[in-house]
C-alpha cells in the first residue's frame, strides 16, 4: 500500500511537465495531421473534409512551395560548405597556433547570440542601395558598377540573405569544432611530428578522421537550423523580390495568415517535416556506415 502511495507522490513531480507536454506538444502535433485533410479558414465552425487534396495540391499546383524549398536548400548548401568550412578552418587555426582562444571564441559567438530580427535589420542597412555601407565601400574602392540594391535585385537577393545567415551562424560550428579539436590528445600530434609527418598530413590523416562524428553533428544541426530559417527573411526581404527568397516557413505562414487556409498550411508543414526527417535519417545512416567501416 505504502509503495503505491510512494509511487503516486513521486509521479506528482512530473505532472506539470506532462500536462504542458500533452496540451502544447501532443495536441498540436495530432491536430496538424487532422487539419491537413480539411479545408478550413481557421474561423468557421464547420470544416470541410477533402481527404488528401491538400497534399495533392502541394505536389501538383504549389510551385511557390517548391521554390521556397529550393531556396532554403540553396542557403543550406552554402551553409554546409562555406559556413562550416570557415568555422572549421578558424577553429583549426585558433586551436593550433593562436593565443587568446577565449577572446576569439567570445567574439565569434557574438552573432549567434543576437536575434534573427536584429541581425536582419542591421544588415538591411548594410545592403541598402542608396546609403548602405556595402555600396559606399564598393564605390570608395572604385567598383561603383558593382553597387546595387542587394536585397531587392533578383540576382543577388538569395545570396545576400545567405551571407547574413552564415554571418550569424558560423560561430555555432566554430565553438563545437573548437571543443572537438581541443579534445584531441596533443601526444598524437607530437608522435606524428617525430615520425616526420607534415602539418598537412597531420590535418588530413589524424585531425579530420577523428573529427568526422563532429562534422556529422554540425552538419545535421546546420541543415535543420537553416532549412527552418525565418526571422532573417522576415526582417530583410519578406520573401521577395517575387519568390526569390521565399522559404518553407514563410510559405506556411502565408497559407495560414495570408490566404486563411489552415488545413493547407498544416499539410505544407507535414510535407516539410517529412523532408527534414528524411534528411536527418539519411545523415544518421551515412554516419553509421562511415563509423562501421
Amino acid at each position, binding site marked *: 500500500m505504502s509503495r503505491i502511495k*510512494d509511487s*503516486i507522490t*513521486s*509521479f506528482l*513531480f*512530473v505532472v*506539470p*511537465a*506532462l500536462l*504542458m*507536454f500533452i496540451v*502544447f506538444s501532443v*495536441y*498540436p*502535433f495530432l*491536430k*496538424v495531421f487532422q487539419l491537413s485533410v480539411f479545408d478550413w479558414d*481557421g474561423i468557421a465552425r464547420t470544416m470541410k473534409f477533402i481527404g488528401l487534396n491538400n497534399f495533392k495540391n502541394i505536389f501538383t499546383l504549389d510551385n511557390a512551395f517548391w521554390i521556397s524549398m529550393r531556396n532554403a536548400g540553396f542557403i543550406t548548401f552554402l551553409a554546409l560548405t562555406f559556413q562550416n568550412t570557415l568555422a572549421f578552418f*578558424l577553429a583549426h*587555426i585558433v586551436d593550433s*597556433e*593562436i593565443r587568446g582562444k577565449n577572446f*576569439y571564441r*567570445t*567574439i*565569434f*559567438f*557574438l*552573432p549567434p*547570440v*543576437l*536575434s*534573427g*530580427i*536584429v541581425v536582419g*535589420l*542591421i*544588415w538591411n542597412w*548594410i545592403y541598402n542601395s542608396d546609403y548602405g555601407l556595402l555600396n559606399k565601400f564598393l564605390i570608395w574602392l572604385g567598383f561603383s558598377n558593382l553597387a546595387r540594391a542587394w536585397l531587392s535585385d533578383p540576382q543577388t537577393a538569395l545570396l545576400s540573405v545567405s551571407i547574413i545567415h552564415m*554571418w550569424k551562424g558560423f560561430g*555555432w560550428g566554430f*565553438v*563545437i569544432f573548437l*571543443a572537438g579539436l581541443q579534445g584531441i590528445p596533443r601526444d598524437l600530434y607530437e608522435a606524428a611530428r617525430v615520425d616526420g609527418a607534415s602539418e598537412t598530413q597531420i590535418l588530413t590523416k589524424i585531425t579530420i578522421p577523428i573529427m568526422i562524428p563532429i562534422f556529422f*553533428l554540425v552538419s545535421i*544541426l546546420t541543415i535543420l537550423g537553416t532549412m*527552418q530559417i*525565418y*526571422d532573417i527573411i*522576415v526582417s530583410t526581404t519578406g520573401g521577395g523580390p517575387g519568390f526569390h527568397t521565399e522559404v*518553407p*516557413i514563410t510559405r506556411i505562414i502565408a497559407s495560414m495568415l495570408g490566404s486563411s487556409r*489552415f488545413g493547407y*498550411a498544416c*499539410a505544407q*508543414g*507535414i510535407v516539410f*517535416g517529412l523532408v*527534414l*526527417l528524411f534528411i536527418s535519417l539519411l545523415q544518421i545512416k551515412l554516419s553509421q556506415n562511415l563509423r562501421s567501416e
Partner: protein
Amino acid sequence: MKNSSTGNYLFSNLICIVVAISCVFPLIWMISSSLKTQQTVFSDMSIIPSNPQWQNYYIAWTKGNFGTYFFNSVFYTVVVVFGIILIASMSAYAISKLHFFGKNFIFILLISTMMIPIPGAFVALYVLLNKLGLVNTRIGYILCQINGGLALGIFILKTFFDKIPKELEDAARIDGCNKWQAYLHIALPLARPAIMVVAIFNVLAVWNEYLLAMLILSDKSLMPLQRGLMVFQGAHITQYPLLMAGITITTLPVVVIYLLMQRHIISGIIAGALKG
C-alpha cells in the same frame, strides 16, 4: 622553415582578426548610427559621432514605444525562465532520483520534442490558443514558451541529477525530509550550475523569440522587443537613427548577459550539442 611558420602564424592571426572585426563592426555601426541625426546618418561616416544625439534613445523609448516593449520582454523572459526551471527541475529530479511506474517512457516522451522537428506545429498551436481564448494574451505566449524550453531543460537537469550521489539523498531522507523537502533543500541548491546553464540558454531564446510573438500577440501593449522592432520598422522605415536606437535597446541586454556569462553559455552549448 622558421620563416614559413612565422608567416603562417601572422596569416592565421590576420584572418582571425578580420573575421573578428566583421563580427563586431555591425554592432558598433548600429550604436554609432543610433547617435546621429536623421540628416547626418547617411552622410556622416564617423564611428564616434561628434555630436551624439542621446535624445534618440528617449524618443525611441517613449514615442517609439520601446519602453513598453522592453518591460514586456523582461517580464516574459523572467516568467518563462522561472517556469521552465521549476517544472523541468521537478520532473528531472523525479525521473533521476524517485521511482514510479513508466518513468523511463515518460522521460523519452518529454524529451522527444528535442529530436522531432514539426515545422507546422505552430499552426495547430495557434488554433489551440484560439480555442482556449489565449490568443493575444500574455499567458498564452508564456505557456507556449515554457513548453518550448522544457525538453532541453529536463534533459540537462536530469543528466546533472544523475551525477549527484544517492547517499546525499538517503541521508536527508533518514533525517526526516520528505521528497519535496529533499528536492527543494538538497537537490535544487546542488544543481545550481546546471540551472544556470538552463536559465541563460532560455533567457537568450525567449528574449530573441519572434515567430510566436508575431502569431499570438497583436496588441502593442503586449508585444516584446523583437515584435516591436518589426512594428516600428514597418511604420517608420526611414527613421534610421531611431530604429538603430531601438535595435540597440533590444540588443544591449543580451550582449551584456552574454559577455558576463559566456563561459556558462558556451559550455552549455557544447554539452548539449555533443550529447545530443
